[in-house]
């Protein structure tokens, strides 16, 4: 048993629902009690879908358990096939049904369903989670639909350069984009456009928008592009083993990653590399100028971004990409990197080592919050939960990864991938810091008579000065209605947490104490570097065995660190 207050990922059958709901012509019969129907709202509310997810639940009750729940399963399957006439049927169970062992998949296999392909899903609810469930479902569905076409063992691999002989443009599949994934809709559009500009066609995008018949066409492509390893990694690797299809492993998020992605795809397709993609001595290439990010990042107004401390947490793909962009493309300093994707912990750990860090692999949001406080970053890049944690700590934050909120499905085109994705990322990450700069200006002009005292900044009541806890922020609104104002107890609770977290900023016991003039001097330093100065000065004082930090100590430390 493990105590969970909040979870980054749902159970594995929610991953299966994501595949079913992303596709057309697929229906999912889920042996599950009525409460499990909550999952529909993930699609109708967060993704704002105008149709119900294609899922029929058996919604068995306690009184059915004494009788024949298996009969309920077969009735539900028969009704769903008749009502929805799917082109492929997924059959599975949620956590509770797993315990009563009706084996809905086996029951479906024994039914005459008029030749609808049936895929039985076994998704262990007590050991696996949502992304694993999505990956497994996608793989099982691809495998079931392609089994009749599998080449016999020992068959030579298809030649990825065969498009040239066949007198056509090269073709790739984009695999992995799905509903409830981060910005998948826009990434598909962006990457499709990008590949077209290099003369490469997209044959099938799946699961998002694909029909079962499209999955049967997957082997027609020359190469698979694994856009979302969390969802399509398993399927890509099976397609390589069974059909000899090579696959692109680079996830094109960021400038360098997009260029690497294009070079990798050109290599696999045996396409001549255009001069604009040929890297110079420093590894950069001309094509990178298709994005504004490089110039925006080099322009003088971005100088203040140098060395900004950034803490990153999300799914493995987005977190790793974000760390590289932050360090190499924006000139930040990565001070924390972690992921809830346990399946890909090894890759995240390897990436963290590039930055001299130990990766945080956890699905406990409080552990992430504590690590965030500990790292004292100036910017947080995370999921919606990190946005809340950052708000509590008075830190600017941008969301880079699922789990998402309705606001992460914007009306405008807002990809993360490709050249335009890099533009979106530059804006999204720098914006909260710009607001921070405004904060600084507010501080500078505080004493001007025109300035109205009590000006509220975007950070709300809180200040970003470590050691001063931000005031409790009210809860986010429900989908529907602003919750009543916080009760005093809730406010106290929020505040208690804030204080507990903020204490992580405070010097530990036995640490040197700040004198009044030291504290006053510290407060003259702009808030967005104050945390760093406080920490550096304290470690400087500790190293020298000082018990008090006065203004002189602060300047000694400043001199020491600027050497």
């Amino acid at each position, binding site marked *: 048993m493990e105590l969970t207050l*909040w979870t980054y990922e749902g159970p594995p059958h929610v991953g299966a629902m994501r595949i079913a709901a992303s596709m057309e012509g697929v229906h999912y019969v889920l042996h599950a009690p009525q409460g499990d129907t909550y999952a529909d709202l993930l699609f109708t509310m967060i993704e704002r879908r105008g149709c119900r997810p294609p899922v029929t639940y058996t919604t068995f009750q306690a009184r059915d358990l004494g009788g024949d729940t298996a009969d309920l399963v077969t009735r539900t399957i028969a009704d769903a096939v008749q009502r929805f006439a799917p082109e492929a049927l997924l059959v599975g169970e949620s956590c509770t049904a797993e315990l009563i062992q009706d084996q809905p998949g086996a029951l479906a296999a024994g039914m005459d369903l008029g030749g609808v392909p049936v895929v039985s899903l076994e998704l262990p609810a007590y050991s696996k989670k949502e992304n694993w469930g999505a990956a497994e479902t996608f793989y099982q569905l691809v495998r079931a639909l392609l089994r009749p076409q599998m080449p016999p063992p020992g068959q030579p691999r298809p030649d990825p350069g065969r498009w040239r002989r066949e007198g056509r443009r090269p073709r790739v599949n984009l695999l992995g984009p799905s509903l409830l994934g981060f910005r998948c809709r826009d990434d598909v559009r962006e990457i499709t456009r990008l590949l077209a500009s290099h003369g490469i066609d997209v044959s099938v995008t799946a699961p998002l928008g694909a029909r079962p018949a499209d999955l049967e066409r997957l082997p027609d492509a020359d190469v698979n592009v694994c856009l979302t390893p969390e969802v399509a990694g398993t399927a890509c690797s099976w397609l390589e083993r069974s059909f000899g299809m090579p696959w692109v492993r680079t996830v094109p998020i960021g400038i360098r990653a997009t260029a690497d992605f294009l070079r990798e795809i050109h290599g696999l397709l045996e396409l001549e590399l255009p001069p604009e993609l040929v890297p110079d001595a420093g590894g950069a290439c001309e094509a990178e100028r298709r994005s504004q990010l490089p110039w925006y990042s080099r322009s003088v107004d971005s100088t203040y971004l140098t060395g900004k401390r950034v803490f990153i947490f999300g799914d493995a793909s987005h977190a790793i990409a974000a760390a590289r962009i932050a360090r190499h493309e924006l000139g930040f300093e990565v001070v924390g990197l972690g992921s809830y994707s346990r399946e890909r912990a090894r890759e995240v750990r390897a990436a963290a080592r590039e930055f001299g860090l130990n990766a945080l692999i956890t699905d406990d949001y409080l552990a992430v919050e504590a690590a965030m406080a500990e790292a004292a970053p100036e910017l947080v890049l995370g999921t919606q*939960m990190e946005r809340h944690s950052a708000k509590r700590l008075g830190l600017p934050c941008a969301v880079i990864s699922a789990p998402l909120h309705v606001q992460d499905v914007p009306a405008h085109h807002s990809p993360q991938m490709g050249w335009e994705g890099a533009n979106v990322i530059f804006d999204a990450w720098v914006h909260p810091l710009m607001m921070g700069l405004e904060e600084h200006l507010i501080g500078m002009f505080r004493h001007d008579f025109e300035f109205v005292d009590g000006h509220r900044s975007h950070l709300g009541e809180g200040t970003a000065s470590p050691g001063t806890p931000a005031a409790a922020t009210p809860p986010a609104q429900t989908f529907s209605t602003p919750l009543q104002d916080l009760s005093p107890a809730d406010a106290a609770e*929020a505040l208690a947490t804030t204080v507990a977290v903020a204490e992580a900023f405070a010097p530990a016991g036995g640490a040197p104490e700040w004198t009044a003039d030291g504290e006053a001097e510290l407060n003259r330093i702009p808030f967005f570097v104050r945390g760093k100065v406080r920490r550096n000065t304290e470690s400087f004082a500790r190293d020298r065995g000082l018990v008090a930090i006065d203004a002189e100590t602060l300047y000694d430390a400043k001199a020491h660190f600027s050497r």
Partner: protein
Amino acid sequence: MSVSAPSIPTSLSTPPAPEGHEIVRERGQREVFCGLTSIVWLHRRMPDAFFLVVGSRTCAHLIQSAAGVMIFAEPRFGTAILGERDLAGLADANEELDRLVARLLERRPEIRTLFLVGSCPSEVIKLDLAKAAERLNHAHSGRVMVLSYSGSGIETTFTQGEDAALQAMLPLLPDAAASGDSADQLLIVGTLADAVEERLTGLFRRMGIERVRSLPPRRSTELPAVGPGTRVLLAQPFLSGTARALLDRGAELVSAPFPLGVEGSAAWMEAAAAAFAIPESRVREVLDPLVKRGREALAPHREVLAGKRLFLMPDSQLEIPLARFLHRECGMELVEVGTPYLDRRLMEADLSRLPPATRLSEGQDVDRQLERLRAARPDLVLCGLGLANPLEAEGIATKWSIELVFSPIHGCDQAADLAELFARPLRRRERLQVA
């Protein structure tokens, strides 16, 4: 609790369907939350209580999704997620639970009442949480009170979780006779918004009912005594089990429509006053101004709602009193009134105020119900979050039901706000000039 418990509560008694209403009984796919969802408002009501669900990752995901909010501080609910080791018997579930609870109490010293909440998985594997609660009570005696109930979706729907939670608290209610405490009091049962509760309590005092207590209380440890002389007034329509158990403790049940709308709220207060033999003149003195003001406030919303056709999908159990309010006070026509289960005794006063031959449906077969809905093309549908946008996309206006369990909607003073919740989607459609 064994899993063979009936999943739909039996009525206290079964009077015939009043007014010849047509009753459609359906069994099929239900699109309703389970009782765990009640934790979303119960934990806010009792800030010194913690709700620990013993279940799966699905349970944790359900509660955070249904709440629709990200957690803004450490919440006062959580899930003890069962893992494969627990199911394979490699780990002793009871020892695991003890370890987890000890850690939780260490972390949250302010908790006074801990609810162990059963879920579908814990019920199916027959994890005896009642026994676990007894054992933990013994271990943490004097520090925290541990209770258990089931909010599992195989036994409870959405709002029934509160019914189960209150029933778990009942044994702790002091016996009025034994404690020498007077039980001559009005007991309002069912979670109300704090401000509404204060308002209603104040009005009862003005009428001359001195002792007014609430269940659940705001502090989980300040439980009202109960016994002969206690008049139970239900504020919420989903508390059949709690009502029955209070009767067993010698309390009497005040029969009234539920306090939604001006008429319903006034009748609800009048019934309470009658139970205390408050003189009519005193009742009128307090209520008449409220009724007059309430009706005036309702008028603009009635203009929008009158003559519009309403279809209520089964969800929170509030559907029948809402239908009564929206029909009689707002002039809406009722196409179908769905309810997860029908407790005729508790609903009697509301049912008898519905227009003759109203179509009621009990239980659900969601696809067939949607077929009826599409055929009827109502002007407004009350439904859950899984159905609202899909219906809107078909051009049918909706009002989401979950708002009704979070918003202050009870009492004469809130009647206009309640009507406004239903009028708003229609007003919005009037305003919008896009495709």
